[in-house]
């Protein structure tokens, strides 16, 4: 019997708090990302070294994507979106390391990420448009739309969570099943497909976060096709 993809393993307990494998993997990825960024940005020069040029390429690509998608200056949103993208990307690809299961293959991690997006949409909306302006955006175009808009806010967060969870978890699950049937070399193409899916899902997660935040900070909210198809 294959074990449930919803179950988590407790590695050790820290006082009353049980520490599970996704938590350990998440802290490992956080250490890797934060430590790597700290190491690489200590000696920034005007004539960039190879590592600095790579980092600048990543940051500039992220800025361009944010500018294209949200049609505003990327400055206030770059830290959040960039961190979300890099974290989801690295965590999806962490299945390359033997013995590590991606933390995004567990529902709790995805719920946390989706909750971050949900809160930051509200935060940015209130910050840019003011409390009254943001609340008024729910009554757009008419007052009848208020329950629907509220519901949409919740369902799209839920969809964000389930999408990431389903994609990453199904990849891990399928590889596990194939591995239990035939051991050698057969899962390799599936793993390559899983890497592609992981990269695309990281991209999509951050693009959707951009679209949601962009919809909240827009002056006159016009229903974009992405948001229309959501609910």
């Amino acid at each position: 019997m294959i074990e449930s993809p919803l179950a988590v393993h407790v590695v050790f307990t820290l006082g009353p708090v049980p520490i599970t494998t996704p938590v350990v993997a998440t802290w490992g990825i956080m250490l890797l990302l934060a430590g790597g960024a700290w190491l690489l940005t200590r000696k920034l020069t005007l004539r960039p070294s190879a590592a600095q040029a790579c980092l600048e390429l990543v940051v500039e690509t992220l800025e361009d994507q944010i500018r294209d998608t949200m049609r505003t200056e990327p400055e206030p949103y770059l830290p959040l979106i960039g961190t979300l993208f890099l974290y989801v990307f690295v965590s999806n690809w962490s299945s390359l390391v033997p013995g590590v299961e991606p933390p995004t293959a567990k529902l709790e991690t995805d719920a946390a990420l989706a909750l971050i997006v949900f809160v930051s949409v509200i935060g940015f909306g209130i910050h840019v448009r003011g409390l009254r302006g943001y609340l008024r955006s729910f009554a757009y175009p008419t007052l009848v739309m208020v329950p629907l808009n509220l519901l949409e806010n919740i369902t799209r967060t839920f969809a964000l969570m389930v999408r990431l969870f389903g994609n990453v978890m199904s990849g891990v699950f399928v590889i596990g099943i194939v591995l239990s049937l035939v051991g050698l070399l057969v899962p390799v193409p599936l793993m390559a497909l899983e890497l592609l899916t992981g990269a695309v899902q990281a991209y999509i997660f951050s693009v959707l976060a951009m679209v949601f935040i962009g919809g909240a900070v827009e002056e006159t909210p016009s229903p974009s096709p992405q948001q229309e198809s959501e609910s």
Partner: protein
Amino acid sequence: MNWVEIVSIIGAAVAVSFGALGPALGQGRSVAAALDAIARQPEAGNTISRTLFVGLAMIETTAIYCLVVALLLLFANPFRG
């Protein structure tokens, strides 16, 4: 094996198989339309492919919902006594 388990397994198989049908058709249509658009206007390729990716993810979500429902039926069935 009791009735609930048998029905759950059949339900999971039906959910995944029929849940894969609709999104497959939809994704095929959208990719075909996007390729057509890129062939007509190659300079708009970047915008089209970004929108295409987001749209594909949206369509795919319905299939993922079916997968999650199937897994819930198999692994976290609330009716299994």
